[in-house]
């Protein structure tokens, strides 16, 4: 081979490599969705806006939901009332699972068994034991798995984690979070109460309200926010205490309608280069969920020695500690330099009388995208690339699952509950 030929050959090979990479990026991922209620419909609608995804099938055993979802999905997505049949007949590259919590384990395992990539809505499973089974299976198969914790794909939360890691908040003092609403959390039933079909239909549609199918407020709402705490603190809680009850919506539900939790985390920051390691310290996280007052809504407040960060899905606000303005009075660290302080004659610095004003003006963090679409975009990309490292992997799912279930266990037993071994 002459040198010219050799160079040509290499260029050709490089060109080929580039085009293969391009093809991999553009590969269309065939996706199926099971569970077409509220959340499932959000997910499938988002999937139809992603160029590299093709929605091939949707499945639900409740015909009214399936019918409505079929309109969103378009005529090319086949409809099924049986999950196994759907997987067999359409062999999708990936399945999105948005069914009631008690069905997650079985459906995830079946898809994994067929070599299908899985996106499963939070919470991972109804018990920690089930969640561990799923982790083992994903690990054994090196499968592509993503848990539906969309804040992991949200630019605000990513920025928040980066701000904590770079020390902008100082040492984390505590985290306060809550998801408060003011409604009965019920889905309406399409037949009158007197209809013999009512009781079964009511439980089917309102699965969130019954322990047989759900972990209630903790698994359906708290899982998002406790995952934020786990993510920001870089660890799982040591132990938890919770008090909860059915105190307002005495309507036949058997999950709590309000819950207040305290979690204790042992945080051990990584030692910086050339510095002594910092001794582990305790950080407490509080979480509450109520359903008869919506004043505080859903948010997480990260408190640190140097600042506070208020997080929601649409906006993040960072408040520095130590007052609203710096009048430039104290000249610290300027030995032998200029004057050590400045006094302004005749003009008292005015700041707002409003007690809230002492927080000062926050630095705002905005986001320009929908995190539900973004999490699916990242999942589809991982499937197309055959990359099992997803943005919210199965271990994250297990940790989140174990964390929220500790609170339910504590509220039931009235005792502190340790993080499961």
């Amino acid at each position: 081979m002459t040198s010219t030929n050799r160079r040509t050959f290499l260029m050709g090979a490089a060109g080929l490599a580039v085009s293969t990479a391009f093809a991999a990026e553009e590969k269309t991922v065939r996706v199926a969705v099971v569970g077409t209620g509220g959340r499932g419909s959000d997910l499938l609608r988002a999937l139809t806006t992603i160029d590299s995804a093709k929605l091939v099938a949707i499945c639900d055993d409740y015909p009214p939901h399936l019918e409505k979802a079929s309109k969103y999905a378009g005529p090319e997505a086949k409809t099924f009332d049986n999950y196994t049949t759907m997987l067999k007949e359409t062999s999708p590259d990936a399945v999105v699972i948005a069914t009631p919590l008690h069905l997650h384990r079985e459906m995830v395992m079946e898809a994994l068994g067929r070599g299908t990539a899985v996106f499963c809505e939070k919470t991972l499973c109804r018990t920690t034991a089930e969640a561990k089974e799923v982790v083992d299976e994903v690990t054994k198969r090196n499968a592509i798995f993503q848990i539906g914790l969309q804040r992991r794909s949200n630019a605000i939360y990513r920025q928040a984690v980066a701000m904590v890691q770079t020390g902008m908040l100082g040492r984390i003092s505590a985290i306060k979070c809550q998801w408060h609403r003011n409604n009965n959390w019920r889905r309406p039933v399409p037949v009158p109460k007197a209809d013999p079909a009512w009781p079964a239909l009511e439980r089917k549609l309102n699965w969130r309200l019954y322990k047989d199918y759900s972990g209630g407020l903790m698994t359906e709402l708290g899982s998002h926010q406790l995952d934020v705490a786990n993510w920001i603190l870089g660890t799982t809680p040591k132990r938890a205490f919770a008090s909860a009850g059915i105190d307002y919506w005495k309507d036949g539900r058997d999950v709590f309608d309000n819950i207040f939790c305290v979690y204790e985390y042992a945080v051990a920051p990584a030692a910086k280069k050339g510095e002594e390691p910092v001794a582990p310290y305790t950080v407490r996280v509080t979480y509450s969920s109520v359903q008869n007052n919506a004043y505080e809504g859903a948010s997480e407040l990260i408190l640190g020695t140097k600042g506070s960060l208020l997080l929601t899905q649409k906006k993040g606000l960072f408040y520095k500690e130590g007052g609203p303005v710096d009048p430039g009075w104290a000249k610290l660290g300027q030995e032998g330099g200029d004057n050590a302080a400045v006094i302004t004659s005749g003009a008292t610095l005015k700041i707002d009388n409003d007690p809230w004003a002492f927080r000062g003006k926050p630095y705002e963090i905005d986001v320009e995208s929908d995190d539900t679409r973004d999490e699916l975009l990242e999942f589809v990309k991982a499937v197309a690339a055959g990359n099992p490292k997803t943005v919210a992997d199965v271990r994250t799912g297990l940790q989140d699952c174990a964390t929220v279930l500790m609170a339910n266990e504590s509220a039931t037993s009235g005792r502190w509950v340790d993080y499961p071994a």
Partner: protein
Amino acid sequence: MTEVLCRRPAMATLFEFLLVGEEEEHLAAVGEAALDELERIERMLSMFDPASELARVNREAADHPVKVSRELFDVLAECRRHHERTDGWFDPCVGSAGRFGDSVRLDDIAQTVAFTTPGTRFDLGGYGKGYALDNAARILAEFHIADFLIHGGTSSALACGTRDWNVDLRSQNSDGVVGRVNLKNAGLSSSANDSSGTVVIAETAALAEVWSTAILAMGFQRARAFDYHELHAVGWIDTAAIHWLKGSGT
């Protein structure tokens, strides 16, 4: 019979649903489901929420065709039909740049939207309220709520059922009530500028919204000459009274 009033802020205004039925718990649950539908539509159609699907179209469609959901595509295709039917007086494109007719390309096969004139943006604020009311009404009907009156920001309303709902119309340009209409199984929309206003009653709230906007934009003289065969009633509101161009609202 019992009545339940449920309300929620959405689309930069307040929506209220007055529902009539047998059982309070059922009415409340259905009301919440219908209010959730508003939020779903807002997540799709808001131009102010950067996370909405429409906001993504507004950001990206001048650079490349944007693949949108079937529902948003259908909404935009419907708006194009309304744009043509009103001789261009209904136009959800804002800004000095483009008009719907010549600045937007809708590809039905690829399900994409592209702006052919840079600077074009959609504002579906008004249409979105009507569309949201129509969809909320579908949910109320799906769960057998027979009688209801629902409104968004008091400028768009929809009534359904056996009873007649009396709706008084106020004008932003005068004190007191300028007229009363009788709403039964129909949508109503009212628009106004500094000097005049319009009121339209039609089969759906979205259709009423389209025409109340278009008629206000075209002005009284042109509006008198238009054919309104698909509308129930059309009124022009000046300082103190409604001049009915079609029907009488009762």
